């Protein structure tokens, strides 16, 4: 028997010790085990193939000849003596921006073109688009706290001290606080984008500002590295890895409610209803200000067929605010639509139905501006309590100057 340890795959101090799912197969590709790289594994003598996949799409393959002696398998992608900057490794390997498309044609600059393609299953002609971009993009970051469903949000000072800096990435830390918060990116001629900040009293989050030729791109990462890895797998649709990572995350003793929410959403996505039994109630009661706890509990109960309790849980959401994760908004929209339909509404208390109709109308309007491709709740509008799609024009409001951060 051989005991095999894994080194890596991450090298930065921030991600050191964070495990990724590792598949161990025979050369005939028979699956032997799936373990986390942070764990060791005992193997019978023989040859094995070890594979791991990182959220941003990097694949790692190693071969092991297991004998009698213990081994350490190096899974690191970057084995340079100098560790990569803290600010480099997270965006490179755990990027939440969908991984770059290897076959995408150059889309910019673009000239007018007549296409033989059918768009919307109708013929179309691409019109000319601007080919120039400003030398230095302009933009500011702002921060808000409050409940967009209840009225105007309170602005609070955005982060000003850069945590880490690489050539085209700047990192800020948003401190831990017990409140639903949003960051807003305002850039000329684009609709302002609001992103929910996954923070709690226990943990803050990391704000990454990517500089691109014509704009800034904002990414939000959880401070909890294991939960952040899971979020990366979610965003990049690496579902096999997501399932293993979620299970592992929830096996541990979690002192971080937001990380627990990330794991719970995964369990719901994978239909692990029985495993969620106590968790969803715990999440709802644990941090009574987090909207997602109520949304998760409601969806869990709905899937179990306990619809009265599910509706009561959903109705707890508006007092807490908009869920931090877009799945929570989807659950609300879909379930409330069903619960308020004429056929099923008769099965609920009329007061609950009235409240559900009001909430459904609010959340449906709000969801019109939500980007459901994003895991964290992301929506447009200069006033987060009145989302819209209008591009921003005029002098930029006060906030953290993105351009200055890169100087």
């Amino acid at each position, binding site marked *: 028997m051989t005991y095999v340890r894994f080194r890596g795959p991450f090298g930065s101090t921030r991600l050191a010790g964070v495990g990724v799912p590792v598949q161990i*197969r025979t*050369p*005939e*590709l*028979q*699956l032997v085990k799936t373990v986390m790289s942070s764990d060791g594994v005992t193997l019978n003598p023989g*040859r094995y*193939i070890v*594979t791991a996949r990182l959220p941003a799409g990097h694949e790692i*393959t190693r*071969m092991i000849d297991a004998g009698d002696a213990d081994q350490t398998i190096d899974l690191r992608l970057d084995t340079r003596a100098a560790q990569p900057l803290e600010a480099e490794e997270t965006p490179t390997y755990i990027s939440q921006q*969908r991984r770059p*498309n*290897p*076959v*995408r*044609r150059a889309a910019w600059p673009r000239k007018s073109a007549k*296409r*033989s*393609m*059918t*768009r*919307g*299953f*109708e*013929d179309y002609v691409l019109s000319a688009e601007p080919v120039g971009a400003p030398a230095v993009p302009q933009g500011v970051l702002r921060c808000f706290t409050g409940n967009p469903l209840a009225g105007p949000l309170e602005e609070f000072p955005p982060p000003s001290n850069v945590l880490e800096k690489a050539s085209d990435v700047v990192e800020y830390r948003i401190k831990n606080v017990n409140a639903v918060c949003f960051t807003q990116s305002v850039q000329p001629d684009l609709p302002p984008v609001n992103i929910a900040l996954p923070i709690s009293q226990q943990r803050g989050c990391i704000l990454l500002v990517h500089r691109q030729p014509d704009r800034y791109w904002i990414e939000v990462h959880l401070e909890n590295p294991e939960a952040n890895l899971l979020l990366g797998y979610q965003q990049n*649709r*690496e*579902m*096999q890895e997501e*399932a293993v990572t979620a299970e592992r995350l929830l096996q541990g003793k979690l002192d971080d409610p937001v990380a627990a929410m990330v794991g719970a959403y995964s369990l719901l*996505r*994978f*239909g*692990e*209803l029985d495993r969620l039994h106590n968790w969803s109630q715990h999440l709802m009661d644990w941090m009574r200000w987090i909207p997602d706890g109520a949304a998760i509990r409601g969806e869990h109960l*709905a*899937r*179990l*067929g306990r*619809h009265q309790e599910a509706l009561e849980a959903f109705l707890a959401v508006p007092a807490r605010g908009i869920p931090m994760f877009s799945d929570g908004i*989807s659950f609300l*929209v*879909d379930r409330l*639509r*069903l619960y308020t*339909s004429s*056929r*099923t509404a008769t*099965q609920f208390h009329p007061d609950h139905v009235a409240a559900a109709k009001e909430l459904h109308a609010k959340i*449906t309007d709000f*969801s*019109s*501006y*939500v980007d*459901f*491709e994003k895991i964290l709740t992301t929506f447009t509008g200069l006033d987060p309590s009145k989302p819209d799609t209008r591009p921003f024009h005029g002098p930029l409001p006060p906030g953290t100057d993105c351009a200055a951060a890169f100087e």
Partner: protein
Amino acid sequence: MTLILDRRDELNGAPGIHALIAGVSYYHHLPGGDGAPAKKPFGLKQLRSTATTGWLFYQWLLDAQKNKRLPLELATVHLLLSPSQAERDANAGFAGVDPASRENFVAAANEWRDFASNPDGMTMFYFAGHGVQRRQNDSVLLLDDFGRPPGGSLSYTVDVANLFDGMAPPADMMRKVALRQLYFIDACRMPDKEFRRNDWMNVPDLWDVDLNSKDDRSAPVFYAAIPGTSAFAVPGGQTLFSFAIRSCLDRIAAIPSDDADPRWRVTTTSVISALDAALNAVNKDHHGEQKCLPVSYGKDMILAYLTEPPTVDCVVSIEPDLAANQCEFRLTTGAGAQAYEVAQLVPHPHPFHVPGGFYNWAVVPADPQYKAAKDGTILKPRLPELELKVKVSA
């Protein structure tokens, strides 16, 4: 005929796959149709490839059944197609297939659900045609009599949410439904200003939706378009999404076995992981701009097996590239059989194709200033190709 395949007697109660496929190219009430013009056509036009897309999915199912690639036997297929005249002229197979009208769809869907009453069974749904969204995350499918007067604008359509909710395990414990369900929604999700003006246009229910009992379905929904965007098609051909899905089901999303059955397989999660790359490759080939949105719901499930390991397009590149024409490259299977060998890696990067699996590779430079390299790796389908980078510099 709507029920175009019925093998229930042959299966004798064993769980099987029940498919409902609808493809609409010809719309009676859109410009160019034979019916009274729709009052609110939402700017939509006749289509030329979506009925063919439905037909091709049906053909894929038959082929997969014939080659024993499906996770269960194919039990029934309900097929509804409304082809354009050009599609009808090009394909004699459309003759005898009922049109995808609202009335036919409702009847077929209800029968489809009744047939799929074995919890161990599986359902597949494929719709190709026009679609709209009234609000974000909404999806409404337009049948061939969309816009037929009188009545509301969406009287002859189907709400995907109503379809999905109606397939949930019923509260009546005596009624059952297949717990493996697969949905392909190959339609646009473009909002129209009319929906803002008229608030929420109603879509008649396909069926009565009762509150579900424990919903432990595996029921992924693969939307061809993300909310607020269009789907694309090659006129007279098929939709880009169907190209990508077919590519995933036949090769790109194939993964090695993780159970006692050694066959490579395609699963919900493997398709979700591979679909973007597959669609991007199709976009590149056809100058498309489509983005899709898979929505997972429930546990992973096997969608299809492969009869043999998938072909993997590989490219090996040497660093420094100057050494490539002095490097021999050898690839052997895990059992030691030669799989590919070349004396010089020319052209460089060097393309080759092998069946998926585990391989040992070796790069042997003729020039002693470079160092030899060898390792083992699993080769499995990647787009545009799987790249093997080898460093031979000392």
